[in-house]
């Protein structure tokens, strides 16, 4: 399961949808808006996405990870819109009969999401707003 939301994330709800009676562990990862980036203060972040493609990419990643770690059950939700410092922008749950696979699956999912899913963030601070990753790319 992989989807986008415009509302605050309820991580425990995500855990409940993933967990099976056979699971002995789950790993919950949350990405959180922090108050700094590259030495600059951050007050809030606006997350934007190519929505249908982002959901497809997240689903593709989840499906691939499930084949790599066949005993795990996983789910991902990414929030879009404006978020304040301390808000969770993403939650990932990986559950497994044993902890090692749950840790590995969760880590693999977040690493791949950061590489290919078409989601962008615009950071707002005291000096204005900026899309992350664009400046100085050329």
């Amino acid at each position, binding site marked *: 399961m992989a989807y986008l939301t415009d509302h605050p994330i309820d991580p425990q709800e995500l855990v409940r949808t993933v967990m099976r009676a056979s699971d002995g562990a789950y790993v919950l990862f949350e990405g959180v808006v922090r108050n700094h980036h590259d030495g600059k203060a951050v007050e809030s972040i606006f997350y*934007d996405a190519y929505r249908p493609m982002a959901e497809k990419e997240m689903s593709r990643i989840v499906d691939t990870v499930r084949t790599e770690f066949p005993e795990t059950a996983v789910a991902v939700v990414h929030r879009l819109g404006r978020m304040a410092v301390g808000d969770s922008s993403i939650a990932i749950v990986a559950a497994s009969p044993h902890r090692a696979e749950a840790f590995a699956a969760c880590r693999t999912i977040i690493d791949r999401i950061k590489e290919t899913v078409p989601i962008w963030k615009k950071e707002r601070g005291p000096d204005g707003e900026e*899309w992350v*990753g664009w400046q100085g790319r050329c």
Partner: protein
Amino acid sequence: MPSMKVRLLYFAVLRDIAGTDTQELALPDGTTAAQVWERLRGTFAKLADYTQPPMIAINETYADPGAVLRDGDELAFIPPVAGG
């Protein structure tokens, strides 16, 4: 002259630069995604220095810059992603 219609989507920094989120392009048959990027560089001064196109998506799937567009395609240039 044979031509086709392609829907170009703008996201994130590119939407800010273009001032719109979508545009219909009439293009000659055989036009590649990279050639559309060249056209944008000529249109928007803020893109002039970006000689290499960002990642490219055609119909919601990543594609090569040299991919030839077809009538009805949905094309998007994907600025560096920053999800998570």
